[in-house]
């Protein structure tokens, strides 16, 4: 460690949707690394320790180093010449960069989607159907005396959701912390989150909807047959007790995760839980919140929503935004082979997408923006190495409760930020589209997609 040390107070960790903004970073400016991250959880510590300046070209075409401008030109050409270009990712970058991505999708009459579509997209769809009784995390900390975690494992995915916001932390009206709270955990198996729960409910895999619907009925005073136990694995007595406690609490909250969105039912599962939360407001104050996994996926929802009117899976082929999950979402545009070019920003779909989608990524030209080398960046035709948001860049990010937070930079990076790269691509794309279609063509000419011949 050198002598050239800097301390950054109240920095924001951008690993998960908790966006803890009480980080105290010790930065070695000579070695360009963060040597200590006070208040960070195990995930945050790994995030800060491992995002260093890597020895890699800033821009590559087919794995060979090129000038930044050459890579931007090639990326712009790929996007403009494609019939069904898609843009995906955006959960681990700033909202300023997200805006540029939406602008590019608009200009190229392409499709923009975010990691939301394979995370809480179903929740977003349910939100449109049944609405959300919502809150800020500060309210949970200060008021919630009943906290339910459904279909998630915060101990490994959001460790400080327990310690800073919802379980052990003391609040204004919760002076004794965990002692003043009843914690309920609903899952199909035992997880690292189990120890914090007063009540652990194990549900049969794929039966969350039935369980939630039974709870809704009980909340509304309907009777439920004891055979609910055979269907869900949970006894009627347990359900009746839970409903009684939920109705009698002062302020209840349900955090929920992929156990609901990624399983049979998807948006129906999320919708059932959100409706349950709303129902309980006839008796007490009850809120629900999807636990968002990435640092700024909530920002992606916000930016895409306010710019297009829809949260994800948005297509501009006809010159105006259209929303259709299942058609314009990336798992589909890739698996169905609709996409003939793709730009993946701050995400690694080649690791985490369905097998047929990964196979199609290998057939089409891919542009990748990532601070790290990943399977996606390795298969990319044009690859940019980027500065890491919240470590090398400032910018705006949104916490899981839609609270915007401004990032504090720790040290500079020689690599450009996502925002810089996307702004450059946007400018070139606009020039190319104008020369191809003229000033009237960019907005009015319908570009109808055709399927890539098999």
């Amino acid at each position: 460690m050198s002598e050239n040390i800097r301390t950054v107070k109240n920095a924001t960790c951008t690993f998960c949707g908790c966006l803890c903004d009480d980080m105290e970073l010790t930065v070695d400016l000579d070695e360009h690394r963060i040597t200590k991250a006070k208040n960070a959880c195990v995930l945050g510590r790994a995030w800060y320790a491992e995002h260093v300046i890597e020895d890699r070209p800033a821009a590559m075409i087919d794995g060979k180093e090129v000038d930044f401008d050459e890579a931007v030109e090639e990326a712009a050409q790929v996007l403009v010449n494609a019939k069904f270009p898609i843009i995906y990712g955006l959960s681990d970058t700033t909202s300023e960069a997200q805006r540029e991505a939406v602008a590019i999708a608009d200009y190229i009459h392409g499709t923009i989607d975010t990691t939301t579509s394979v995370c809480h997209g179903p929740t977003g769809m349910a939100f449109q159907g049944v609405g959300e009784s919502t809150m800020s995390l500060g309210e949970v900390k200060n008021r919630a005396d009943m906290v339910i975690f459904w279909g998630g494992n915060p101990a490994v995915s959001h460790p400080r959701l327990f310690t800073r916001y919802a379980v052990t932390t003391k609040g204004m009206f919760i002076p004794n912390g965990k002692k003043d709270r009843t914690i309920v955990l609903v899952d199909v198996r035992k997880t690292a989150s189990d120890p914090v729960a007063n009540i652990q409910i194990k549900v049969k895999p794929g039966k969350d909807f039935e369980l939630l619907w039974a709870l809704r009925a009980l909340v509304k005073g309907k009777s439920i047959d004891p055979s609910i136990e055979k269907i869900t694995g949970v006894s009627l007595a347990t359900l009746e007790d839970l409903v009684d406690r939920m109705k009698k609490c002062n302020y209840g909250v349900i955090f929920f995760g992929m156990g609901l969105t990624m399983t049979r039912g998807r948006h129906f599962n999320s919708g059932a839980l959100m409706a349950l939360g709303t129902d309980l407001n006839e008796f007490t104050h009850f809120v629900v919140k999807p636990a968002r996994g990435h640092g700024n996926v909530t920002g992606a929802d916000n930016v895409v929503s306010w710019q297009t009117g829809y949260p994800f899976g948005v297509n501009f082929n006809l010159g105006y935004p259209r929303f259709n999950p299942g058609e314009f979402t990336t798992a589909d545009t890739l698996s169905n082979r609709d996409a003939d070019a793709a730009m993946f920003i701050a995400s690694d779909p080649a690791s985490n997408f369905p097998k047929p989608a990964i196979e199609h990524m290998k057939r089409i030209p891919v542009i990748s923006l990532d601070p790290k080398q990943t399977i996606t960046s390795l298969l990319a035709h044009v690859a940019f190495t980027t500065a890491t948001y919240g470590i090398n860049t400032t910018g705006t990010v949104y916490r899981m409760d839609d609270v915007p937070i401004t990032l504090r930079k720790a040290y500079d990076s020689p690599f450009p930020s996502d925002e810089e790269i996307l702004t450059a691509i946007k400018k070139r794309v606009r020039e190319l589209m104008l020369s191809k279609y003229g000033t009237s063509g960019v907005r009015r000419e319908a570009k109808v997609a055709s399927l890539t011949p098999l």
Partner: protein
Amino acid sequence: MTETMILIPGRTSEQGTALNKGKLKAEYQHETSMLDINTEDMERLGLQEGDRVRLSNETGEITVTCRGRKPEDLPHGVLFIPYGPPSSQLMAGETAGSGMPLSKHMEVKIEKVDV
């Protein structure tokens, strides 16, 4: 001997920290190839801790390493794996019009791999 079970890909602490080190590095690749399986299921299938098994379905197949879990912690017929490139090979592209592929509860055939 093969049996059909339900696979749940999900997060672990090790997977979350290892992905920061780099997804192409050994730690992440190791963690995303470890399969949690109920010890009674293991016994019935003739499996020991650390044995290799093949998981397969209509979409693909992978070979992973067994980690035993107590029956009171992991139900019979339920498998858990830290999500990553191996589990993606078993994920089909069908999203039922939702945009979300079935990323948990995939039905898989499990059989011991003879080394």
